[in-house]
């Protein structure tokens, strides 16, 4: 066992994900945090530490957003940490929560993730332009969608993948989202719909992309002793991994995310997983774009390089397949409030392993699940392995 104490998730909460929500960021954080506490059957006074995961201040438009959101996250007069690794935040935040409890310093930790992207006008995407190097990249007119397009193109080229196969992911996830009460963009679409949708930055088309959203999600982490008192059904955090690559993103071959593999290996080693495709029952890789699910499945070592499209075509990644992937509907179906989206995936695995996912439940009594998030300038991977 790594760390001094074993750590379990005992409660989770998610708000609706929508393009625009009326609540302020603080109110969103409160809703999610309160829900997670109620689900765990615990009160705020039982919480000894709080971790907040939230991505760029530039979306909400409040500098030092972590501090701003603190009281909504229940951190009043508590030890508090805000973490931020771009899109990787949603899985990284529970990792940071894990440190708090596994180190033996705290018995309980409330992990909250929030994003309110709608404050940024004319479009939240504009705030993303500042991720690029101001001297070498911004004068070219860089747009966030372009870096995904450049990566997608390279991935397709390297393995000779057709858009039809990639579009299948968007179709699957949006359909899975129909069973998710919080979903923003659940829909029954076809591959043709994706291929006919407006070209944004070729090869990325509108239905390949997840939207910007407002939303929050939270989980309650506790040590083994507390878990015994609070629930009969704890979900253990058995593996954590994280890794970053350099911002010299133009120096890498973008067809494969090395940093996701390193993070995954770290998490699998901790969890004692030697054969990921066989030992993992359900997966929630980060899917802001449809090709990213495939890219990340390979980085998570759930299949060989270039093999993910084939598995999708064969139905392996459907809910009733051998490796259900994104049963929640993912970001493509639910929406993408950056940090909250990654945390939502952790919540989904939590509910799946407990058999509480309702209509989205994957059959076969899943016991081991993995959630992964990805961020920054295509450089950050965070991976968490959960087990019942």
């Amino acid at each position: 066992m790594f760390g001094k104490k074993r750590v379990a998730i005992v409660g989770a909460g998610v708000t609706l994900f929508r393009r625009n929500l009326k609540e302020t960021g603080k109110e969103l954080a409160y809703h999610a945090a309160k829900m997670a506490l109620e689900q765990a059957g615990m009160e705020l006074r039982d919480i000894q530490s709080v971790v907040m995961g939230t991505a760029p201040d530039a979306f909400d438009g409040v500098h030092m957003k972590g501090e701003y959101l603190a009281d909504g996250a229940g951190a009043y007069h508590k030890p508090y940490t805000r973490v931020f690794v771009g899109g990787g935040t949603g899985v990284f935040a529970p990792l940071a929560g894990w440190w708090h409890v596994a180190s033996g310093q705290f018995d309980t930790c409330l992990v909250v993730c929030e994003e309110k992207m709608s404050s940024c006008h004319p479009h939240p995407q504009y705030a993303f332009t500042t991720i690029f190097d101001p001297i070498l990249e911004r004068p070219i007119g860089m747009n966030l969608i372009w870096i995904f397009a450049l990566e997608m193109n390279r991935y397709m080229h390297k393995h000779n993948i057709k858009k039809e196969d990639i579009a299948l992911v968007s179709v699957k996830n949006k359909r899975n989202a129909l069973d998710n009460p919080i979903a923003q963009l659940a829909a029954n679409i076809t591959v043709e719909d994706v291929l006919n949708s407006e070209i944004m930055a070729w090869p990325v088309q509108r239905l390949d992309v997840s939207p910007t959203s407002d939303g929050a999600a939270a989980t309650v982490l506790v040590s083994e002793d507390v878990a015994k008192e609070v629930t009969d059904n704890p979900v253990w955090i058995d593996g954590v991994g994280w890794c970053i690559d350099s911002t010299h993103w133009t120096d890498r071959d973008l067809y494969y995310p090395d940093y996701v593999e390193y993070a995954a290996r770290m998490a699998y080693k901790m969890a004692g997983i030697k054969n990921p495709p066989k030992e993992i029952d359900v997966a929630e890789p980060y899917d802001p774009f449809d090709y990213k699910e495939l890219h990340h499945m390979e980085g998570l070592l759930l299949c060989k390089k270039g093999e993910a499209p084939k598995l999708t075509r064969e139905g392996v990644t459907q809910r009733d397949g051998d490796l259900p992937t994104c049963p929640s509907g993912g970001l493509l179906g639910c929406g993408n409030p950056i940090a909250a989206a990654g945390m939502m995936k952790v919540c989904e695995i939590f509910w799946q392993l407990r058999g509480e996912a309702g209509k989205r439940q994957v059959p076969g009594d899943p016991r081991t699940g993995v959630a992964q998030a990805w961020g920054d300038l295509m450089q950050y991977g965070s991976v968490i392995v959960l087990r019942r």
Partner: protein
Amino acid sequence: MSLEKITNPFNARHWIGHMEADYRYTLGIAGERFFKEIKENARIMGAKCPVCNAIFVPPRLYCEKCFAKLEEWVDVGKRGYIYTYTIATIDIDGKKLEKPQIYALIKFEGAHGGLIHKIGETDKVQMGMKVEAVFKPPNERKASINDIAYFKPAE
């Protein structure tokens, strides 16, 4: 490679730019109700926690200590007292103001928190001084903190 000290960034080769975005901050569930009351009824409201009985001004959706939802709203009146103040002589860009402006944190009796606002109709203030809100005429109110023009000394 040299490691000389430079204190003015414009002396090194640099690139000038800006980080532009327009922001629209929703007032939120609690905020909308608070500012609607100010705009339509010239009323300053607070919210009460059912667990610890604390009244918060401005009102919020939840009590940060008890984590309970705040459903009961109360009118805290238009009068408060100066908890602390400052006298500003320069504006946000660093230019000298024509006339110094007093800003104060105004608390309301029996309530936590308070409002930061201007003090008007006087040049002299002291800690604890009683003040009263002066609202703009109804047609000038926009559901903003500036619907209150300033706080003036009260008897």
